[in-house]
């Protein structure tokens, strides 16, 4: 039977303004972890619901998450201290499908870069390009560099790397080299562009999307999104059937 887990916080550091990397014990209850899966975390006693946070990396005895202070829940989470115990449910969700194709592009925007770290760790045999975009201050770039040679950075203000959107880099890469598959996570506007570009270049793409959640396990139906399939449009649950969907199926923001 699955269970909720109590994981001790091993470390909590601010890696960029308002961005924390939190490392916790990997207790046995967590079981296997696939890249793209998330934890559903009770951030504070003062908040009723859990918050979905992607697993950024998993090692033998620890699990790392990267959290952006977005509101009350994530602020509380970022304020939790080393030694405190986190109440987590998971790993939840489907995760990325990693066995498709050789030439891979991994493209992330902002906090959406977090889950891609565990993904690239699982793409060792492949020919991987990582494209990451940020508003201003990049983070996790060095972590990506541990696993892949090509990590191209874009910032909107041009402070680091290419000045502009990371999707421009995607377009250029596809134009020059092509790819077999694209994996992406980031804000909805970015995912929509990635989806469109992938279609244009006829490359398969997996998108990890976000939706407000309550249960996180597929029971409450508050997190649905729409996917197109042969028998028409179907509603699926982001938490259980996702958060990763094929780009030619998922209907973003509809």
């Amino acid at each position, binding site marked *: *039977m699955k*269970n909720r887990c109590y994981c001790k916080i091993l470390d909590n550091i601010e890696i960029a303004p308002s961005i924390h990397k939190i490392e916790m014990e990997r207790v046995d209850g967590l079981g296997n972890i696939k890249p793209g899966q998330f934890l559903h975390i009770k951030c504070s006693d003062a908040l009723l619901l859990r918050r979905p946070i992607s697993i950024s990396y998993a090692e033998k005895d620890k699990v790392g998450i990267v959290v952006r202070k977005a509101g009350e829940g994530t602020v509380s989470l970022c304020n939790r201290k080393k030694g405190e115990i986190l109440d987590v449910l998971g790993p939840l969700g489907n995760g990325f499908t990693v066995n498709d194709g050789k030439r891979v592009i991994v493209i992330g925007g902002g906090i959406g870069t977090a889950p891609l770290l565990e993904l690239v760790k699982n793409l060792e045999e492949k020919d991987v390009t990582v494209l990451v975009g940020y508003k201003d201050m990049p983070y996790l770039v060095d972590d990506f560099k541990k696993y892949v040679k090509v990590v191209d950075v874009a910032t909107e203000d041009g402070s680091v790397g290419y000045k502009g959107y990371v999707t421009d880099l995607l377009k250029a890469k596809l134009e020059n080299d092509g790819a077999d598959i694209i994996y992406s996570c980031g804000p909805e506007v970015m995912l929509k562009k990635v989806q469109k570009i992938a279609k244009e270049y006829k490359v398969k793409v997996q998108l990890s999307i976000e939706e407000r959640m309550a249960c996180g396990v597929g029971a409450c139906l508050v997190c649905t999104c729409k996917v197109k399939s042969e028998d028409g449009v179907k509603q699926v649950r982001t938490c259980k059937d996702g958060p990763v969907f094929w780009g030619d199926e998922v209907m973003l923001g509809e």
Partner: protein
Amino acid sequence: MSVDLNGLVLNNPVTVASGTFGFGREYGEYIDLNKIGAIAVKGLTLEERQGNPTPRVVETPMGMLNSVGLQNPGVDYFIKEELPYLSSYDTKIIANINGNTIYEYCKLAEKLSNTAVDALELNISCPNVKEGGVAFGRDPDMVYKVTKKVKENTDKYLIVKLSPNVADIKEIGASAESGGANCLSLINTLIGMGIDIEKQKPILARGIGGLSGPAVKPVAVRMVYEVSKAVNIPIIGMGGIMNYQDAVEFFLAGAWTVAVGTANFVNPMVSIEILEGIEEYLKRKGYSSIKALVGQLKF
């Protein structure tokens, strides 16, 4: 710790609330469903329903608003694809049914009559559908009428689920009793709204939603108390139950059984923990059965 709701006998008095437990599969990975008194399944309609657009949830102070809007695969699909799974467990199955008209309610009852479901729960209180729903739940005559008609169309044990969005819930409960309800369940959600002040629009795509969770518990306990004084049929109490202490409040107020809703989202194991807590409480206080506790409020 079995409890006999005048004809519907549950293994124990901890059930789960409609819409918070799907059709059981998901939480079946976390707990042994045989250990739950009954499972009220997600609200069913005659046809498949897509429900409301997202966002469908807002967190509020110690509560949440939902506007799922009765997304469900339709009653036929339920009977064919979900009921067999549920029936494999030693727990009672409550089919929560939702119509826009009395005819639809009757049709739903008919379809479920020769199936393995143990009881029907007439949801006359869902705030998330545009027609029918709420209007039914607010008008005592309509409540009487729909209850009576459905009762005529089924042999199943009939639960009527009451809306808290009324001036006098005693009156509504009494109408359902007169109409032939075997049992009442309450409360459904209070209608609420949450606003995103940066975007200056409601957070829920549909604007309003149903408030559940600890925030509503004081209202729910009061309503269960009021209704229990006004009717002679069993009550399933719910609204914000997070732990055994909350559950005991409902029993003391007059509920024969409790249902756990929103708490499942926070802790998938909570219903079992609540059951264990109640068992200990009964032992500690020297009660030989849950029935002995029901309505024992000194007041």
